[in-house]
């Protein structure tokens, strides 16, 4: 049976659907930023940006860009009515101090126990960490958004991260282009497999044992 992997936009839409009304959310740089394009219009969701913004809005119309109003990826953004600016130390208090409900982060690897590797590929690359480690330990729920497999077809869900760690045991849920996987004390539980993908095939592609969510729907 054949199946189609989700596009990045489709993964983003899945994540956006799972963000409840009133949540304070940080979307990491790169792929997770796409989630902002899919937030349900009928819910009030507060987007946080590490550089001192709550209530961050979408990109401005062309010509309306303001060099003093940018997101963590240094792209121009807007402020929603009711939004606020604050300085970096307050911003990271929000992140580290368990005030954010959800952080959506990209990843190179996630381990079976929820270890996250997303800041450094090691070797010759110049190391750069930004706010990744603060979000990893600080958000109430760390959700990872990533492709299930590397370009060469290896599982990015691994028994142990081989890339340098960002945080230990921090990931609660993994949204991939094949499924949604919860990290639980009993191991990884997979649900929402893309149409046409059997559980056995997902297990074959995934580097560690997973169990089907079964009767219990993904929380």
């Amino acid at each position: 049976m054949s199946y189609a992997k989700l596009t990045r936009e489709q993964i983003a839409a899945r994540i956006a659907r799972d963000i409840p009304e009133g949540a304070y959310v940080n979307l990491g740089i790169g792929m997770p930023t796409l989630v902002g394009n899919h937030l349900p219009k009928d819910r009030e969701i507060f987007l946080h940006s590490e550089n001192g913004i709550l209530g961050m809005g979408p990109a401005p119309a062309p010509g309306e860009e303001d060099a003093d109003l940018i997101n963590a990826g240094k792209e121009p953004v807007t402020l929603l009515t009711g939004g606020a600016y604050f300085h970096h130390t307050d911003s990271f208090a929000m992140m580290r101090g368990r005030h954010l409900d959800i952080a959506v982060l990209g990843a190179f690897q996630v381990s079976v126990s929820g270890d996250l590797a997303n800041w450094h590929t090691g070797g010759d690359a110049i190391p750069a960490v930004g706010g990744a480690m603060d979000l990893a330990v600080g958000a109430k729920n760390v959700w990872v958004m990533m492709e299930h497999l590397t370009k060469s077809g290896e599982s990015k869900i691994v028994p142990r991260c081989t890339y340098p760690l960002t945080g230990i045991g921090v990931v609660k849920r993994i949204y991939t282009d094949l499924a949604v996987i919860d990290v639980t004390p009993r191991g990884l539980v997979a649900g929402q497999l893309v149409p046409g993908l059997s559980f056995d095939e997902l297990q074959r592609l995934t580097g560690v044992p997973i169990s089907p969510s079964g009767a219990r729907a993904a929380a």
Partner: protein
Amino acid sequence: MIDKIVPSIEAALADVRDGSTVLVGGFGGAGVPEELVDALIAQGAKDLTIVNNNAGNAEFGVAALLKAGRVRKVVCSYPRTADSHVFEALYRAGKIELELVPQGTLSERMRAAGAGIGAFYTPTGYGTDLAKGKETRMIDGRGHVLEHALRGAIALVKAERGDRWGNLVYRKSARNFGPTMASAAKCTIAQVYEIVELGALDPECIVTPGIFVTRVVKVPRKKTTVVPAEAAA
């Protein structure tokens, strides 16, 4: 009469010494005190340690300071950007030292310095390469890393408006590291686009009270800075 306003950017930086640790505000292009950094290049101090979120972009600002060979060490969270080639070349040639710090730890280390705290335990970075060699401790069942205060001899910050007592307000996300850095240095120099009379800044809305500011210098607003009509709100 107390007047922290200095007549020129050169006068503001006259006494920066070789070997100083200089805290430089800004995140990406927002809140970078570009004129002060340019003046620091002209001033000539060398062997500097620069604390900034990034390690310079393109060929201006911090990157120009690096290129001029004035910097011994960079303390930052994110030295790798699309156009950070000046830092990269120096780093690969072994001509500059890098202390990589998680962004929130960088900010909190400066807050601690400004608040008279010697060091603190944070869960950020526990069990990672960035905690190697540092003291750790379990607190409430969670691993924490001991991080020390980070103090500057000089802080260079960009604010929107200031008065002669050194009170400052910022603009949008250009605020970023400014208030924390202002508190963490022995000598804080703020560049502003506007100097206003005492009392013109709403006391309920002053972000950096003048006690944290040593000198204020006015710089002309750049044409490239887009300021929409609602900016003054």
